[in-house]
């Protein structure tokens, strides 16, 4: 029996247009490509004198961050501003829920203020999905990261960056290295790469940082860089949370770097034209060496700039389906 998948229906409206963006799972290759193409049309805008389009004028977008993240929140805020939307930033980690207000009540209160879109980050897997299922009909929900589950806009900006450099996905071999177990970014990247038709997706990590039956996510698992990086076109490093150290997961930073850190020497194990990516913020000397992070093969800063265009694309597509032009 095929496992149930998260229904794409929840993410699409009756006409099959984007409504919520909660997870990469369930989307077609065409839909993901449409997002990348739309993002491409926004990408040049940042260099122009006037950086705004009036697509979402009069709409209110709420950044609902139950978990701190200055960088992600800032790019969402910039994307919304460039679409001419009004933006409300709510940092709930220090606000309502700490007073015992439930997630649902927080949402209901904001709904009552006639918000049009929620951009949600939450420490629990499934939180964005729960909000999308329980909020008012007219509201779109964009998942800006939920627990270990998904970070689909990050995955799409990574796909955008890969496409910029490698043009298409069909012959690509991609390796994702680091803490796959706790990474929502990795889960979304793996789904996006598989849907977009990448030839091979690998994960490289010690078993302590791989989820159970990881192969069933559609990857090949490796436990060392020498084999894992062989013939690779795209190297994606993941951030290693400091709190994973000195637990039973890893013995020490130095041993981790020795085995799974990306040094200039290890970059050579991949194809000569391989690109190096990282969702940021990077831990220099822990998972990646400075000479690599700042080196010629690194596209890390391009990922950040691309984040704005990709988020503009997703936000405008989601809002158009909820009747922005009516």
């Amino acid at each position, binding site marked *: 029996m095929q496992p*149930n*998948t998260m229904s794409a229906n929840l993410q699409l409206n009756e006409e099959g247009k984007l409504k919520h963006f909660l997870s990469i799972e369930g989307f077609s290759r065409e839909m993901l490509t449409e997002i990348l193409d739309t993002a491409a049309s926004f990408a040049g805008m940042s260099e122009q004198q006037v950086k705004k389009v009036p697509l979402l004028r009069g709409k209110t977008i709420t950044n609902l961050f139950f978990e701190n993240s200055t960088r992600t929140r800032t790019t969402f805020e910039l994307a919304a501003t460039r679409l001419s939307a009004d933006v409300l930033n709510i940092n709930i980690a220090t606000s309502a829920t700490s007073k015992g207000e*439930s*997630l649902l009540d927080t949402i209901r209160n904001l709904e009552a203020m006639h918000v049009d879109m929620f951009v949600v980050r939450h420490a629990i897997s*499934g939180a964005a*999905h729960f909000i999308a299922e329980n909020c008012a009909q007219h509201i779109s929900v964009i998942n800006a990261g939920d627990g*270990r589950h998904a970070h689909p806009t990050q995955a799409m900006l990574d796909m955008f960056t890969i496409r910029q450099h490698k043009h298409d996905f069909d012959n690509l071999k991609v390796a994702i290295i680091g803490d796959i177990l706790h990474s929502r970014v990795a*889960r979304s990247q793996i789904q996006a790469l598989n849907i977009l038709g990448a030839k091979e997706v690998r994960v490289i990590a010690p078993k302590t940082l791989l989820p*159970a039956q990881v192969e069933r996510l559609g990857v090949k698992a490796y436990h060392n860089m020498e084999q894992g990086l062989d013939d690779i076109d795209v190297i994606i490093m993941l951030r290693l949370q400091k709190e994973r150290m000195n637990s039973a997961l890893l013995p020490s930073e130095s041993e981790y770097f020795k085995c799974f850190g990306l040094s200039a020497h290890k970059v050579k194990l991949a194809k000569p034209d391989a690109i190096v990516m990282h969702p940021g913020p990077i831990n220099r000397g822990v998972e990646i060496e400075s000479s690599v992070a700042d080196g010629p093969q690194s596209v890390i800063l391009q990922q950040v700039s691309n984040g704005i265009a990709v988020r503009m694309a997703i936000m405008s597509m989601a809002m158009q389906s909820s009747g922005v032009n009516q």
Partner: protein
Amino acid sequence: MSKLLIRGGRIIDPANNLDRQGSVSVADGNIIAVGDELEAFTPDRIIEAEQQIVCPGFIDLSARLREPGHTRKGNIQSETRAAAAAGVTTLCLPPDTNPVIDTPAVVEYIKDKSEKAGYEQILPIGALTQRLAGNEISSMFALKQAGCIAVGNADLPLTKLQILRRAMEYADSHGLLLIYRPNEPSLSADGCAHDGAFASRYGLPGIPAAAETVAVAQCLELAQLTGCRVHFSRISCKGSVIKLQQAKKYGLNVTADVAIHQLHLTEDDMIPFDSAYHVDPPFRSDSDKQFLRNGLVNGTIDAICSDHQPHDLDAKLGAFPETQAGIAALETLLPLTLRLSREHPISLTQSIAALTEKPAKILGLDKGALTPGLGADICIFAPEQSWLVGHDSWQSAGKNTPFWNKSLQGKVTHTLQAGRTIYQQ
């Protein structure tokens, strides 16, 4: 003297190796004849049971009633009504009420409530440790005197293996059965789903099967050491079945049950983030399910329980990991058990035995059979009748079940407890 005749049904009584058309005669709360009608018997009341099955009332080894302490989720009144509608005439109540069942006073309270609800046979399981905190053994003798059928620590851990050992020795000194739900907390930690492909895909903290099998192995060793009789409650995986099979083969006096939903659902059936599927132990892999089913067929697993855990709406409203685990399962117990005998080479008789004869034997009760002289605990059901879960007849205060709104086959029409009709469709 009140006399009742149940006429024209198919009588299935595994304990007496009986499967035949016939009638059951009841007088003054006791069964007086099974099979042929007595000649000089003039009943005050007749139940026509054509096209129906007449069997002993079910004995549920684990059903939460949520009282005392958690009455937002249900109470003795509402949940015993659900039990009656499910054909369950005797049920074991785990000790994790609030206050926990660690004093005779709490047992008295439950008895009193049970009497008021008109449902007599609630068998409390006494707490193995004081406050279920896992540190100090409870006053097991007093609990037994008050009416506890066995002792257990519900789903809560013991702080040390040494405590479990001492508790088992003490329980055995008083001839008490230990009902043990195997779980090694350091391995299950914050998990909310089986540590398999589903949890990996949706980023849910996993509970490995080893969290259960490690605890089964440890407890089997201690059963050997202490001589305490152990019943393993709600096992969920292949490794547990294999370990129990070996233990039984070498003559260890242990038994086990499985929650009915574990025999039907696996991680592959879960709807992503649907809290109705949040259950502990979690839905495991298909291979685990097959082993559990085979374990039931070959007798490694003795009984089926409902693992009834009704919840209020709020408990199930939230992001999946933050919702509470459990299914309101009493009223789907019979149809799902019948489905088992339709889908698998387990006979109808064998599946009914797992709800009647077997649990009675585990608890050492003179029940679970239609033997003349015994109290008339009887379930009459229409095996082919389809009904929609959650509609009209639903009695439990909990609406938390993955079978909600689904059509199931098999419906209880009458439930008799000591000859008294406690449910009629």
